[in-house]
């Protein structure tokens, strides 16, 4: 094989790829396969696993907490357009160099570099019953609007959504600014000369120009909303009050590390993977269909 130039090139490519492939297999494929296998077992993480067939999945379907968590996760997915829209509008304003745009570009990005634990702790203090938000409402004569924002089941999840928005929108702004920078200025110039403003400008000029970037960011946010909000929930609400802010990934943690039900947690993980995969597939299909 190595005697021909093509064969040598192939061997070289394989050698360069091997470490990455090996790491991928060892750190991703094997754990994922192991989790899938354990989803069909009764396992506490220490003693040998015992095969139980589909019992964990059957229990999952009967588990009301799981369905509450799925519903909460879907609420977060429905908020993804809001998270995109806020970032997009702010990116356009910065791109149009509104007064102070340099400051805002840096300021908006700041929350993105903060750890979710810090953000969660910060907002837990800010949103307390005797915290600054309620104090401010009282000061401006809106005392009737004061709330136990994270302790009330009707406001806990929406509050969490807004905190996550605060944390994530800066990164979205940077992503969209990068996308806008790649679009030729002539397009925006021509649109402005033709009198396109406001919604028309956004709908017919910006969105088509940034379609790929919006798709990328949308898919990212959807995956993120299913798999990366653990720290916010852990710090701010613990999934409560009751199950008001319970997410599938948080339930997975409870089952695995609080109740020692690793097998059931693996089934939850497998279900979570299928959900993310299904939702992202649907999202990509919808976006592709719209493009056509």
């Amino acid at each position, binding site marked *: 094989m190595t005697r021909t130039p093509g064969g040598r090139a192939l061997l070289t490519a394989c050698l360069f790829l091997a470490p990455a492939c090996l790491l991928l297999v060892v750190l991703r494929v094997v754990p994922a396969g192991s989790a899938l296998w354990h989803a069909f077992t009764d396992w506490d993480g220490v003693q040998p696993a015992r095969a139980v067939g589909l019992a964990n999945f059957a229990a999952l379907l009967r588990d009301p907490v799981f369905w509450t968590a799925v519903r909460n996760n879907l609420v977060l997915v429905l908020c993804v357009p809001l998270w995109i829209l806020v970032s997009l509008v702010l990116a356009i304003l910065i791109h149009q160099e509104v007064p102070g745009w340099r400051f805002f570009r840096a300021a908006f990005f700041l929350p993105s570099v903060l750890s979710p634990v810090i953000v969660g702790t910060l907002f837990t203090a800010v949103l307390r019953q005797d915290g600054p938000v309620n104090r401010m409402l009282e000061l401006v004569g809106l005392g009737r609007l004061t709330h136990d924002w994270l*302790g009330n089941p009707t406001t806990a999840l929406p509050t969490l959504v807004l905190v996550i928005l605060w944390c994530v929108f800066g990164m979205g702004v940077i992503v969209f600014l990068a996308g806008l920078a790649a679009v030729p200025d002539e397009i925006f110039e021509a649109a402005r000369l033709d009198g396109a403003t406001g919604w028309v400008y956004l709908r017919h000029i910006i969105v088509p120009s940034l379609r790929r970037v919006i798709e990328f960011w949308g898919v990212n946010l959807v995956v993120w909303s299913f798999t990366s909000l653990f720290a916010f929930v852990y710090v701010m609400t613990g999934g*409560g009050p009751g199950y008001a802010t319970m997410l599938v990934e948080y339930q997975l943690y409870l089952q695995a590390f609080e109740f020692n039900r690793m097998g059931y947690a693996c089934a939850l993980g497998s279900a979570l993977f299928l959900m993310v995969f299904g939702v992202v597939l649907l999202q990509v299909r919808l976006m592709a269909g719209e493009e056509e």
Partner: protein
Amino acid sequence: MQRHLWSIFFVVMLLLVGGCSRPREAAVPPGAPTPSTAAPGAAVPASESITLTVWDWHAADPSKGVGLWLTNIDREYEKAHPGVKIKHVGQSHTEYYEILKAAFAAASPDKGPDVVMLHQGNRIMDQRPSLRPLTEYVTPDFKRKIVGWDLTSDNFDPNGTPWAVSIAVQGLVWYYNKAVLQEAGLDPAKPPRTWSEFLDACDKVKAVGKAGIAVGEKEGFWADWFVNSAYFQTITSSDKERLLRGDMKFTDPKFTIILERLKELGDRGCFQKGAMSTPLFPDAGEEFMRGKAAFFLGLISDVAHWKEFGEMIGAENLGVMTCPVFQPGPDADKFPTGGAFAYAITRTCQHPQEAFDYIAFVASDEHAATFLSEVGSFPANQTYDRGLIKDPCARQIADWMAAGKTGPHLGDRLPTEVGEAIRRECQRLLSGQTDVTGAAQAIQKAADAARASRSR
């Protein structure tokens, strides 16, 4: 070039394979032979120096309280046993069992802990596959001195196989701020005893702009404590056994009446504003210490207890009582004990005899006395002199314990999932997401599921 590529490839492969090829020891079922190289009881030659790794959550802060007490004991032990070094590793209390589980799964005899701190009750029972039974080390004399064997032994039977040695006694009592009661026009010398007196007191305290009870229900622990503090009034010890076996349901009126009383407290506005999002530690305790509330359902040891409160509001201003009585009965004025910490030896420990010697040293008569006098916590070793106790609240608690006015903490024997269901459903009850019947049914469902899961 090609030779370089091959060299790089082989180095990377060697590193990867070397890193991944560490043999993972198989988990050992309870009672099976352990991987120890030293036979239990074998003395360590004087020339050999051994290190005992001790994991706990108190050592994370060695500057005060239990952490400081343990640090001093470690030094004393090392001085008395020149061949043994104690490596105390303070772990985060919040993620303690996650970290421990990872260590047990790795089952590394040279890197994992030898001695671990555990909460009594189900936390110990859940870890048994990774622990060493202590039957051969616990002598009758040692056993007589220490309480809490029912929470550290198989089947919650004090005569069952012991898995850990209790170091502390924890319990739940109600503290009150005498100054706040006085401000509300109440007699601080006569704290409310009946339920109606208690509600009346909360109303009067509320009328002077303070909260009746300082509550931290963010994690659901407060309501869980309330259930544990009140259950003696309606659930007898035989009822409790039936409840644990599944013969009595959580939907039984004897249990639901406790949820009704809990809801009554919430509906009547006995808690401070924002109680549902307030962490129990330290926020709710601070609310009480700042004189913003009259009552606090607190602990008898470690934190949120008589020593901490007494230092803040003055021992003369602090009173202690048991749960207000809504159903009079012979056990109505009991308070629950349990849920404190114990020390166990891991299966991977190479020197179990030395590990037990260390535990026995920590639990000795001498250290039981310093645990009370220096830390302000009640030791499991009952040989301490009650005359040492100067604090009036602590003396009252000790007198109650001596008079047998204690019972087991219900939560210590419930499966973890059921404890979690009680906490979550109480949160839902207090935040208006469910009613008493719905909450009781959901708890029962969790109990049924836990039983089914364990019988599989």
